[in-house]
């Protein structure tokens, strides 16, 4: 019952009683009519709730496919059509249907809400949305709110239609990875590259003095005749290249708004590099490192490997449960919101009863305890706990927190730390333990490597400072074994979005300038540190074409130094 109907009912009862006592027939008639009207509407509404609402079914198609799972690339449009059908009766007017869209998706065209204004057996609506980042999106179902035409009664239900969408990181599809200008005499086989070291390739590396044991076929007779001594031709090596990409997967990189997190940028860069490497016929692999462990995909060829890499990168972008902490009012509010959204019928006072207690005495604390008790009931039911655990959930913060986080994750709304400003996310330094794990990963990779490996480390090391020394031995050892190490540092671009308006205060501008200057200094410092290791570094920001990084890598394939980078 809404306040409107309650007021009308109270006025009707009061008016009828006064009119009867004062023998005023007009007042009595009016008041009794109002009471009977509300009763009639209530009966009608109950019938609607028990027939129409119970028989509603939802069917959703994503890009014209109605499967329970699907795959889509981040940034590509996703067309969603929702069909709501009523098997008994019709969907009446004043029904509001809302398809619950996960936070990772942004509705760009149309609306996910449909207000029914005419009775119909079948309600259709569609909208277009765009994934903001890689990860997993779960469509739980539709929230249906029905009310009578006069706004006296409201009922909410959630019609479950669960569909999960795997969002893979977007990547630029590179064209021909080889140079269009002919620099070599013979094009190597697909996936084979020239290495500027002596070998059995077709490209001339140098001409040197003959040493006994050199094959007679390689003697350069004309040069030998001119110099009057035997000279021999030495050729470059033709080798396959294996690219191993190292990506950080810690909670540090998951901070920030969807699509503007560091992990989103890293995934995009790593996906682009993998795609380009595989398109050029190289082997590509992936190593994910965190504070505690490294895991990865062994280098391989083909689309299957690319798909595995993209899937693993999508996993790194998926929000996971936060670290241990306390049960906070924010967490309770988040859980209440999700429960109101997903299980409104389980919050009903008639079903979810709260034991009568006096304590806590303060009204707001008492109210919070009642809400927590209701939430505990829902958690208990959904997780199959005993009735005694209900009381434990109410009093034990840690127990409640664990189950709340689990429930939120199941509902597709993982408990995350508060969304930070991008600059704040960028300024969290990398954990030294992560760098130790990275060093372990590099060692393991070149331990099973061949001669010509390329290690690409995609991580924000701007604030690493001295802790970067943890990977120095591993990098130098890799270089000594004729591998190549390239650092790609993804940079978030915080100031552009938030403070570029005309109303930006002077202080904000000054802070922005100071922040930019500090970042430039840090970039120069990091470049110097990496150069002392003997490796290469490239910086990339959101919106920067991945082709810049790929161009550097293309030059690195030939084993030549890049001017201006070293």
């Amino acid at each position, binding site marked *: 019952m809404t306040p*409107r109907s309650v007021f*009308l009912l109270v*006025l*009707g*009862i*009061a*008016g009828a*009683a006064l*009119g*009867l*006592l*004062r*023998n*005023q*027939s*007009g*007042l*009595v*008639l*009016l008041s*009794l*009519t*109002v009471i*009977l*009207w509300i*009763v009639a509407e209530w*009966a009608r509404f109950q019938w609607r709730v*028990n027939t129409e609402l119970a028989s509603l079914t939802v069917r959703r198609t994503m890009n014209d496919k109605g499967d329970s799972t699907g795959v889509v690339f981040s940034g590509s449009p996703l067309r969603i059509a929702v069909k709501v059908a009523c098997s008994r009766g019709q969907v009446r007017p004043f029904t509001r249907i809302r398809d619950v869209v996960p936070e990772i998706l942004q509705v760009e*065209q*149309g609306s996910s809400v449909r*207000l029914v204004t*005419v009775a*119909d057996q*079948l309600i*259709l*609506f*569609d909208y*277009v949305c765009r994934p903001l980042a890689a990860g997993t999106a779960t469509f739980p179902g539709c929230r249906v709110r029905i009310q009578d*035409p*006069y*706004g*006296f009664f409201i009922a909410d239900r959630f019609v479950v239609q669960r569909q999960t969408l795997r969002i893979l990181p977007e990547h630029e599809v590179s064209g021909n990875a080889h140079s269009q200008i002919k620099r070599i005499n013979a094009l190597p086989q697909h996936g084979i590259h020239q290495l500027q070291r002596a070998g059995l390739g077709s490209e001339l590396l140098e001409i040197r003095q003959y040493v006994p044991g050199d094959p007679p076929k390689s003697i350069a007779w004309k040069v030998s005749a001119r110099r009057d001594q035997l000279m021999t031709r030495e050729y470059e090596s033709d080798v396959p290249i294996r690219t191993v990409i190292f990506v950080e997967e810690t909670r540090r990189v998951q901070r920030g708004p969807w699509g503007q997190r560091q992990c989103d940028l890293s995934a995009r860069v790593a996906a682009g590099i993998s795609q380009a490497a595989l398109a050029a016929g190289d082997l590509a692999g992936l190593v994910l490192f965190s504070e505690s462990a490294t895991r990865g995909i062994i280098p391989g060829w083909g689309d299957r490997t690319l798909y595995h890499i993209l899937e693993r990168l999508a996993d790194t972008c998926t929000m996971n449960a936060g670290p241990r902490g306390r049960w906070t009012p924010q967490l309770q509010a988040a859980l209440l919101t999700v429960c109101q959204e997903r*299980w409104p*019928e*389980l919050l009903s006072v008639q*079903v*979810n*009863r709260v*034991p*009568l*207690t006096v304590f806590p005495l303060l009204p707001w604390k008492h109210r919070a305890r009642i809400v927590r008790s209701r939430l505990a009931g829902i958690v*208990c*039911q959904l997780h199959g706990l005993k*009735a*005694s655990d*209900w*009381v*434990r959930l109410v*009093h*034990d913060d840690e127990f409640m927190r664990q189950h709340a986080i689990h429930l939120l994750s199941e509902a597709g709304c993982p408990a995350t730390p508060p969304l930070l400003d991008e600059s704040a996310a960028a300024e969290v330094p990398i954990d030294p333990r992560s760098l130790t794990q990275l060093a372990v990963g590099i060692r393991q990779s070149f331990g099973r490597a061949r001669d010509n490996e390329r290690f690409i480390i995609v991580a924000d090391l701007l604030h690493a400072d001295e802790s970067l020394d943890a990977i120095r031995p591993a990098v130098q050892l890799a270089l000594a074994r004729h591998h190549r190490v390239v650092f790609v540092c993804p940079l978030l671009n915080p100031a552009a979005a938030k403070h570029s308006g005309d109303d930006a205060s002077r202080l904000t501008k000054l802070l922005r300038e100071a922040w930019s200057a500090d970042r430039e200094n840090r970039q120069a410092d990091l470049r110097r540190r990496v150069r002392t290791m003997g490796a290469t570094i490239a910086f990339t920001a959101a919106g920067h074409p991945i082709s810049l990084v790929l161009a550097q890598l293309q030059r690195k394939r030939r084993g030549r130094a890049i001017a201006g980078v070293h």
Partner: protein
Amino acid sequence: MPQTDGNQASDPRHDPLMLRKQQYALTMIAVAALLMIQLQNPWIPTAMRVIFVAAVLLGFLRWSAAILLALIQLDLLLGEPPRAESAQQVLCMVTSFLTIVLIMTVSRLRSAQELTGVRTIRQLLRSTLFSLLNPDPDLQSAHDARNSQGLVSGAAVFRTCTKVLILMLAAGTLLLLFPEDTGSGRQLGLTSPALRVIQIGLVLFTLYFACLVLPGEFRWRRLTRHQAGIYLRSLYVGWAHRDLRMIVRHRLRRRRRNARLRRRDARKNADATLKETS
């Protein structure tokens, strides 16, 4: 955004603007009729009439149906004579009829406003003007066809009036079932109006009880598995709450105490190690 359902797109009834315009038109008619009746009301002084008219108009524009009902009830309470003559009773019935129509249409209008987001008449006019300046050809032709036939408004008026008449008939029947009877009241030591209040109140309470019990039973049989599970758990927790709470709190206290002791022991060990090394 292309509409997937072509029939719905061309149907003017799907236009919320159209619905609101109809509701406004109906409400205006009801208000005008009610005011005309009130202005010819013989038992209220002119000053009171003017205040009443202003209040009803303001209520129509800004307030909810409950305020309007309260105003009209107050007017009837103060102005209607007890045991009115038949001419006055007819006037009261007409007033009641128009009041119910007005409350119905205002309630419906407010619901439409809440759902569609257009709150005031000015917003409605603005959106109407916008739709006139940027007409949708399909929608416009369908609007014109329906408006020329006059079906939508006519049907809405007819439905509302029929509903109000049926409800008033039911209320009148209830009143006729319990006429003023002085004999029984005297036997029970009550005045005739008081006895009538009790009689009608009992009927209404019976109606309420039936409404509470029957659908409650029906709802209980239709509970989902989760609802039934929560209900049973909450009942059990309600019965054994004190004992369970005591057990849980005792365990929590013990756990905290153990943790505190462990921390203290660890601190002591650390201090001892420090002393040994120094």
